[in-house]
């Protein structure tokens, strides 16, 4: 194709930002100085352009981080360097929440107003903040805006602070209070050293369970220095990789099958079967991806694991790569986790320097290395095929399946992809043996599972429980409902999950246990809602979340999430179109088309929580819902 850009030159900062990722331009064709040689040589070709395209997202990040926005000349220069059409690059960039296309203030504070923080603070954190410091989006040197869940739910409030510049700053404040805005403003820039994100919280603040209480994949969290590979090895690190090398790929897969480990990312697919399918696929090369794009509201487990045990993620991905015949791995970390990215990159560099990544992993003669990729604010990029597209520099849109990733995944090659928790569970399988692991939990749901406990509970935090432990036991470990108030409901599984009532606390938290109750474990989200929480408001926040996070590819989800939010708004305002019955029929039809006809899991579950709330009558005024109008006709439970 003939690449055409507007031709306007980028400014020096923009050029430096792009070159920081791509290196200086090789020729006049790529936006560098024209040399006599340029006229006699042609560099290009589709294969080269395809290889380079995967650098698009890192380069867009560089522009956003250093310059604060992506201008037309900057985009043009980047595209010239990548042999990519500017319209396509814009299509990609504009699908992410963290990229801007107009200049703004140097400091932007993204304040979580999602379900867990709402439940914890008993209202809308964004409304509270607006009343205190002024409306979102205003301010010349600092602005704030509401954000979907930032994955620090155990603190009950959180903000992501992004400062443009070189070096700039990216950090999370959790807990976060309105006063922090004034504090940041008073710092007047150069936040890097002023707000130290590196302070280690007390272990029990993150993992309230004591180490003796059956902690397996959490046993190192908060107890070793996450920046020290020696500390990791002293705590048993890299024993699993040694074991994996002894066993060989077939042996590892055998242990995984014996362990009956099921994926923790949501789909509960048998891990051994997936790894075997990748390992056996004759096409080459293979890839392995750790999915750390944790964005499900109420979920913070992967962030805790990476922040506090990053070497375990590196080791587990190495085991996965060597077992499935992949020499290249990726860890895709959500863009809102700056500390996780830094810790992982540090851990990977250390592992590389010790010969635990690279050309000869642990002296085995086998090659494996990994690359850390940052997301840029898109829940949908956590869907595995959308994640591949994101790494490849395409729009984060889910692909049609089949083909499945084990056949055609990243770069259309056989790809294994697992959630971080699954990968760390693999280390545990190798540590204790598949048979011993299978004896943990229930016969169908083996092992342990992480639960992200948040909301109105005494001791929020990350809990590791054997599969099949009851919800009541979890809540008891968490100290029960804060202030001893009555429990109204538990939001189980995440935004794509469902509500569980106070009469169902004996629900066993296993795949089959929750399935029998019509619920899902999802990403292990457990948000406790007491009688002060406006459940209808929580449901509307979830509807807004899906409306914001739909990729827009298929009609059922693109328009359905919009219509669902509108219908819930009418119910909340007590202004149904036609009758209440008509509105309920409409919501039911939206549920049907999204569940049945959407391309991916996001669309297929975008109405789950709404349907669950309606089934349980949680949108009625008796449950704090503002829907007094529509339910005033004697139907207390809609």
């Amino acid at each position: 194709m003939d690449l055409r850009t507007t031709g306007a030159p980028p400014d020096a900062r923009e050029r430096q930002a792009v070159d920081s990722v791509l290196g200086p331009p090789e020729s006049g064709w790529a936006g560098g100085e024209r040399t006599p040689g340029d006229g006699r040589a042609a560099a290009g070709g589709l294969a080269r352009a395809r290889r380079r395209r995967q650098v698009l997202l890192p380069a867009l990040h560089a522009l956003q981080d250093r310059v604060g926005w992506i201008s037309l000349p900057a985009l043009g220069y980047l595209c010239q360097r990548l042999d990519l059409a500017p319209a396509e690059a814009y299509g990609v960039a504009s699908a992410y929440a963290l990229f801007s296309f107009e200049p703004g203030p140097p400091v932007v504070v993204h304040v979580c107003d999602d379900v867990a923080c709402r439940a914890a603070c008993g209202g809308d954190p964004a409304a509270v903040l607006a009343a205190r410091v002024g409306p979102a989006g205003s301010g010349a040197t600092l602005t704030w805006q509401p954000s979907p869940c930032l994955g620090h739910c155990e603190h009950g409030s959180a903000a992501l602070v992004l400062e443009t510049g070189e070096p700039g700053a990216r950090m999370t404040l959790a807990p976060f209070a309105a006063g922090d805005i004034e504090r940041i403003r008073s710092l007047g820039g150069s936040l890097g050293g002023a707000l130290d994100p590196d302070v280690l919280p007390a272990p029990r603040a993150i993992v309230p369970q004591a180490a003796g209480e059956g902690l397996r994949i959490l046993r190192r969290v908060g107890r070793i220095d996450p920046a020290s590979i020696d500390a990791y090895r002293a705590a048993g690190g890299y024993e699993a990789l040694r074991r994996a090398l002894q066993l060989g790929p077939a042996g590892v897969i055998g242990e995984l099958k014996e362990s009956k480990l099921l994926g923790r990312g949501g789909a509960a697919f048998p891990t051994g079967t997936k790894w075997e399918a990748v390992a056996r696929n004759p096409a080459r090369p293979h890839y392995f991806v750790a999915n750390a794009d944790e964005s499900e509201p109420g979920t913070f487990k992967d962030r805790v694991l990476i922040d506090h045990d990053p070497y375990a993620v590196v080791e587990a991905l190495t085991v996965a790569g060597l077992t499935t015949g992949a020499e290249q791995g990726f860890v895709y970390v959500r863009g809102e986790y700056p500390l996780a990215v830094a810790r992982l990159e540090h851990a990977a560099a250390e592992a590389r320097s010790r010969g635990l990544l690279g050309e000869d992993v642990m002296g085995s003669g086998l090659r494996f290395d990994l690359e850390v990729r940052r997301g840029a604010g898109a829940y949908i990029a956590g869907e595995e095929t959308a994640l591949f597209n994101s790494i490849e520099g395409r729009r984060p849109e889910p692909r049609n399946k089949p083909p499945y990733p084990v056949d055609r995944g990243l770069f259309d090659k056989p790809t294994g992809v697992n959630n971080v928790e699954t990968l760390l569970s693999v280390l545990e399988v190798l540590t204790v043996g598949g048979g011993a692991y299978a004896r943990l939990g229930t016969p169908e749901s083996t092992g342990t599972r992480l639960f992200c406990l948040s909301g109105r509970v005494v001791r929020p935090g990350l809990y590791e429980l054997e599969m099949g432990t009851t919800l009541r036991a979890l809540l008891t470990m968490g100290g029960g409902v804060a202030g001893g108030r009555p429990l109204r409901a538990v939001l189980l599984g995440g935004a794509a999950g469902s509500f569980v009532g106070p009469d169902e606390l004996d629900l066993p938290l296993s795949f089959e246990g929750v399935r029998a109750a019509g619920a899902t474990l999802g990403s292990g989200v457990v948000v406790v809602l007491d009688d002060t929480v406006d459940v209808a408001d929580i449901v509307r926040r979830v509807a807004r979340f899906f409306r914001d996070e739909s990729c827009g590819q298929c009609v059922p989800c693109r328009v359905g999430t919009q219509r669902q939010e509108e219908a819930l708004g009418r119910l909340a305002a007590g202004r149904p179109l036609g009758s209440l019955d008509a509105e309920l029929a409409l919501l039911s039809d939206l549920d049907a088309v999204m569940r049945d006809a959407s391309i991916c899991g996001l669309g297929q579950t975008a109405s789950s929580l709404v349907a669950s709330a309606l089934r349980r009558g949680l949108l009625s005024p008796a449950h704090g819902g503002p829907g007094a109008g529509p339910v005033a006709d004697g139907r207390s439970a809609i």
Partner: protein
Amino acid sequence: MTTIAPVAFRRTVELTIDGRAVTAREGATVLEACRAAGVEIPTLCYLETLTPVNVCRVCVVEVEGGRALVPACSRPVAAGMVVRTDSDRVRTSRRMVLELLASSVDLSTAAGDVHRWIGEYGARPERHGPSAPAAPTRPHAGHHAEPEVGSAATVVQPVKRDNNLYVRDYAKCILCYKCVEACGEDAQNTFAIAVAGRGFDAHISTELDVALPESACVYCGNCIGVCPTGALMFVTEHDLRATGDWDEDRQAVTRTVCPYCGVGCNLEVHVQDDRIVKVTSPLDHDVTSGNLCVKGRFGFAYVEASG
């Protein structure tokens, strides 16, 4: 010397469509098998000449054993597959897809089939409320304004008229991706437009929405050729429609060969009142597959030149 025509040994698979045993070529899609069996499947984003993107979901069918419905346009047939094209689930999803589109997009110039399906499936777009006014600005990804209670958001936006050849009225866009495909890898390899933004705010755009003359557009018009709703339209057609003078009953369509170069592209010249109002190209022509260049599609003014 005698030549023997090669015989294609094509494998076939047996499947069931709506209770009928059907034989289809291996590798065929469910859509192709249904059409061969005389079963109508509505489609919007599908076109024979483009790679299926399966995004509109109006072609969904039920395949026994599957959890969700599957898009007929891209799912290959498999031996023993049991397909239902008219179950309650299928009808509900198709009705809702049509209803969601009709409630958010101006379908006034969409193909006649679309309006027939809306009627046949009983879509009721009005139950989502009256159309909301256009939003002043398009929201940034992940940050939309709370919807106004009682009205239904639409994709309405001002008509884009930034060149002399064609008009882009994205209030009529169902986001079928066909124009993007035709501009990109499936035909023209120009990549002047792409889907930008996300969710309900996703839209077709040049880079940062620059006007077409600033973009990579080469005015081949292949996007117009594949647009199913009239969102992309010749200036001539757009203006005649605006004055109420567009009348297909008064038009003659003449198939001819493009006079410009030697490729032999076929043209369909649409003439109303002795004036060329539109040029299209037959999809089934083996040279062009519906595609033309700027000269073939727009270079007809000389026909009407005097002297």
